[in-house]
């Protein structure tokens, strides 16, 4: 069975919402809401009610990066200070804790930010070629529902979309 990409464009979010909630309520048996992707010009956290909470791994990256930055920063500084043969003293200790804490804090934030960026790039699957079904109207105001389904479900889905005043439907075979 061939698999198809299907993209239905709606004029506003509410119609797309109701279309997806129909799919969720098994109006088309065999098609589950997990195959659905919402493409929109703005973020819609409320879609998680019907798409399900698909979660995000970015906070894990952030935590790892921040902890790494803090500890590695402190150890790096302390070892550099301990090995620096010339010690500008001024009565201050060789490995001064207040100083190193300030700098470790900065390193915590720097590595936290950088690892968040890395997590974002990985989690959002950026830096890849865009999937072929992309309509520029999404950038303006239309909301798209994209699905990857088997051939036999295409007509029922198209019918469902038309019920919800879809503006345009595109489909393409998955290569």
């Amino acid at each position, binding site marked *: 069975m061939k698999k198809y990409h299907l993209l239905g464009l709606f004029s506003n*979010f*509410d119609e797309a*919402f*109701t279309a997806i909630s*129909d799919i969720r*309520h098994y*109006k*088309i*048996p065999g098609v589950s809401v997990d195959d659905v992707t*919402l493409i*929109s*010009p*703005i*973020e*819609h956290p409320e879609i*998680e009610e019907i798409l399900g909470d*698909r*979660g*995000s791994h*970015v*906070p894990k990256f952030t935590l790892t990066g921040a902890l790494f930055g803090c500890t590695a920063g402190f150890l*790096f*500084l302390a070892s*550099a*200070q301990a*090995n*620096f043969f010339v010690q*500008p003293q*001024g009565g*201050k200790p060789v490995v*001064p804790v207040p*100083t*190193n804490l*300030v*700098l470790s*804090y*900065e*390193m915590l*934030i*720097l590595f*936290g*930010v950088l690892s968040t*960026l890395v997590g*974002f*790039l990985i*989690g*959002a*699957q*950026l*830096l890849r*070629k*865009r*999937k072929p079904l*992309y309509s520029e109207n999404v*950038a303006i*105001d239309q909301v798209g529902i994209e699905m990857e389904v088997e051939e036999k479900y295409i*007509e*029922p889905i198209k*019918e469902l979309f038309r*019920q919800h005043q879809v503006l345009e439907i595109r489909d393409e075979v998955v290569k």
Partner: protein
Amino acid sequence: MQTKDINEDIKWAQINKDVLRSMENPRIGYWIAIAVSLFLLSFAIGAEIYQYNVGMGPANLNWPHMWDLYIATFIFWIGMSHSGTLLSAILHIIQADWRKPIYRFAEAMTTFSLMTAGLFPIIHIGRLWNMYWVLPYFSDRGIWPNFRSPLVWDAFAITTYLTSSALFLFIGMIPDLAICRDNARGWRKQLYTLLSLGWRGDDRQWRNFRRTYMLMACFLIPLAVSVHSIVSSDFAMSIMPGWHVTTFPPYFVAGALYSGCAAIMTLFILLRYFFRFEAYMTMPIMVKTCKLTFAIAMVWTYLNLIEFSSIWYGHDEVAKELLLAKFTGPYSPYFWAMLFFGSVLPFTLAFEKIRNNIPALFVISLLLNVGMWLERWMIVTPTLSLSYHPFAFDVMWPSWVQWFIVLGSFGWFGLLFLVFVKIVPSVSMYEVKEMIFHRRHLANKDIASVMHRRESDRQSGTDAPAPGLEGA
């Protein structure tokens, strides 16, 4: 007279059109602005080349005035960079959506202020070709910078802040760059395709985006506070009277937010006029910004009063003498000007008529920033003119070399900002759409109730299977 933060009936296609129009081929006014910026910058470049060849002497720096306008302007620019953080990160976390049309240029201002501020440590040190020694790198001699020094903390903090704000700006721009990509041709299309990193707006990307943006905002706020505290510790960690003051970290942070807000007001008015963004950068938003500026001005004034009173009540004669010298000594005209512009002038923002009068606000915001620049100067110079040792009392005025370089920094900032507004949308299109979307839905109860149905809600007619599959 606009009464709402934004008109909820604006069509989204219109938003795209208006903002993208600001990025089209520039008209004559833009080229004049670029010419002026380059002109100012050329002053700085000439003065710096002269200073590089001859030494720090022509700047009128002397013993004991080892620091002067360069450090003051450095702190001024770092201070101005806090505007973006305030508006973007703090207001985002508290979900104040009136920030949405104006935060993009504010964040850009943060990044470019930091890039301008970063030039000053290079300019003010005596042997600038060795500047990189301040950074920790593995050298074959095992020599490291002195991590105890607040100047090295500055290097770390500013690098971190610049990286983080640039990334914050960039990540926030990705959906907008995707819009630009869809509407561009030629070299611009390639540029935006590269910059938008393959954004297509599916819910996976939005979900991760939302999480990332919130995390970065949460990082950026303590970072901004700590960066300016670290910059203030250049002074607070020293032993000099007038510098060794424990209120300096919050004082500097308050001053930074203050000058940042005033700069936002200035740029707001300029962008609104030149790009005709009246529908997005509305007067109610301007009024809110004015109120915020006024509030921060009062915090700054309070911290000033605290510093004065604790010195006045205390027993440190040296600090007292310095305080009196600030009020009555050779630098007193500038000190009183700073107090006037910083503490008295913001009271004009308490009047509604002035808050809605754009030319007045333009002048007021510029004067507020003048006041804040004077504040930085009045922190650096009077202390050095008195210090502890009576033999070292000296009055010094900066020379043309310093003034040219300070002026040129404004030219550099202007140049960066002007290039920015033509390459990248200076109003965040997707956030304005979000703002309109949420306000429209708040206003319209029917849509709201449909949208936020729960599983357990049952409505007639929606439980039947879809047509076409009944037989399947």
